[in-house]
């Protein structure tokens, strides 16, 4: 008997790969001679090619945003709560494109791919990429798919930064821009957390200067620590308190340093452990650098209003009350600058206990607001 998926699921999906032969010039001054992008699509592109929505992923995301790769999959794609028939990004209306960014470790060309110049894995030799570079590569993907203009570019966190960059780099190529739980640039505190994560990886003896693949090792401890510190910033104090409190895994305190005593320790270790088994350390470094470097207003002496003046898209900016990684104030900066630049923008500040992670969690108010905005988009 075939497995039946929920009515609001996009069901079975399979990734596709596109090979690009035209060299991609990068912000760092280097270029990628040729590269591949892996992506998925959900829904149907209409005859006018006017209903395409691009999903930009966050730090550890990838192309598999919705549906299932096999009927046996335990979990659907990472943003399945928001993509599907009747969901905010309604696949009955939109043709959704979701890719794995360049430099990623889920199929697109990245540090784990073969460097054509050496015949070995790029490793640490993979160029440092910026959000602008990603948008550039995504525009090439749009060209290849015959999408001249997106109905919307949508992203959360680092994905929101890509959406924002799209509106600046290619004003004519998107009608709507949805920026969720994001920021116009990182704060010193954000960069500081990223640096701790990078140091955890860089100082892992198994990292081998980024060429661990050749050594047949994985900097597992470093990646695990990086993820643990990152994960703390994704949750709110309240949600951690509610989930774990000071609950113990053991019956009593052991008065030592190696036992896993508190539930929260166990949870973080599990998260770190799981992540270190599926993510590439060089990709993690690259993603955090792209975050740190993102600052579109820098080209205009820090004037975000001026930066956004050429923008043509209408915006929906969404933040979450307990997000302290990219707090509502950061989303409000984007909103205020858009108002200053006389652009159309709506701003939602959703009450949520889930911290930064709230953008992945389908709370009723979030789904309602996001859905109502998407629903209004003409295709």
């Amino acid at each position, binding site marked *: 008997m075939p497995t039946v998926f929920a009515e609001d699921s996009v069901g079975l999906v399979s990734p596709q790969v596109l090979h690009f032969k035209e060299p991609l010039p990068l912000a760092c001054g280097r270029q990628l001679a040729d590269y591949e992008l892996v992506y998925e699509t959900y829904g149907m592109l209409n005859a006018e090619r006017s209903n395409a929505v691009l999903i930009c992923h966050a730090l550890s995301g990838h192309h598999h945003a919705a549906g299932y790769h096999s009927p046996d999959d335990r979990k659907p794609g990472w943003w399945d709560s928001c993509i599907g028939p009747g969901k905010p990004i309604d696949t009955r209306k939109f043709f959704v494109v979701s890719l794995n960014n360049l430099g990623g470790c889920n199929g697109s060309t990245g540090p784990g791919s073969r460097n054509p110049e050496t015949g070995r894995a790029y490793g640490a030799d993979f160029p440092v990429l910026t959000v602008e570079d990603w948008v550039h590569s995504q525009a090439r993907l749009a060209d290849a798919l015959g999408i001249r203009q997106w109905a919307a570019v949508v992203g959360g966190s680092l994905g929101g930064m890509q959406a924002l960059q799209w509106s600046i780099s290619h004003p004519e190529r998107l009608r709507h821009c949805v920026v969720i739980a994001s920021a116009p640039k990182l704060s010193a505190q954000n960069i500081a957390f990223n640096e701790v994560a990078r140091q955890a990886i860089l100082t892992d003896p198994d990292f081998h200067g980024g060429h661990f693949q050749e050594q047949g090792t994985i900097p597992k401890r470093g990646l695990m620590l990086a993820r643990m510190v990152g994960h703390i910033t994704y949750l709110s104090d309240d949600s951690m308190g509610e989930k774990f409190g000071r609950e113990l895994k053991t019956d009593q305190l052991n008065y030592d340093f190696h036992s896993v005593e508190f539930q929260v320790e166990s949870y973080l270790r599990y998260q770190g452990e799981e992540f270190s088994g599926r993510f590439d350390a060089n990709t993690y470094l690259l993603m955090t650098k792209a975050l740190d470097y993102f600052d579109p207003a820098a080209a205009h002496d820090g004037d975000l209003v001026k930066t956004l003046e050429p923008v043509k898209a209408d915006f929906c900016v969404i933040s979450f009350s307990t997000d302290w990684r990219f707090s509502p104030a950061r989303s409000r900066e984007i909103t205020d600058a858009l*108002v200053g630049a006389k652009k159309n923008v709506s701003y939602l500040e959703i009450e949520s206990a889930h911290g930064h992670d709230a953008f992945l969690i389908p709370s009723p108010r979030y789904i309602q*607001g996001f859905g109502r905005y998407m629903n*209004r988009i003409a295709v």
Partner: protein
Amino acid sequence: MRADLEIIQEWIPAGSRVLDLGCGGGELLAYLRDHKQVHGYGLERDPDKIAQCLDHGVNVIEQDLDQGLDHFADDSFDVVVMTQTLQAVHYPDRLLRDMLRVGKTCIITFPNFGHWRCRWYLARQGEMPRSEFLPYTWYNTPNIHFCTFRDFEALCREQQLRVLDRLAVDRDHRLGALARWWPNLLGEIGIYRVTR
């Protein structure tokens, strides 16, 4: 459209930039956009009303007015509108000053606590007035800063603001000859246009 909004829209020049404080479902802004090429934003805090704004394609910013208008630059709007909300904010005086920092003119409507019905209710019952129009008990009401027309005009004088227009209407926003004659006693709702 609500009758007060019908009156207000006439006071808003075509093509102007408008900020609507407590914009509700975005009715006024949608009308102004469709009929008068107005570019506007609404501030609202009620999630359902915000969703209605999104349905109308009206720019809505989720914000509590008690936070003030620090997010908006001086002179960034031609008109700042606030209907039936003045009495519900914590610092009406600060907000009024802020509105006229951000906008060149302001349109404000509020219920007149000096209306004869309020006075009669208080005089006769010795209790805070309640009505169909203002149904709340004193201890559980969003309306924490009631004022009369005279009170409001005194505040305008204190802030050296000029009242450009004033209409006193009844609860259905009808203009009556009586209210024109003695607004502070006979007008239920005041609609003011104020500038620096």
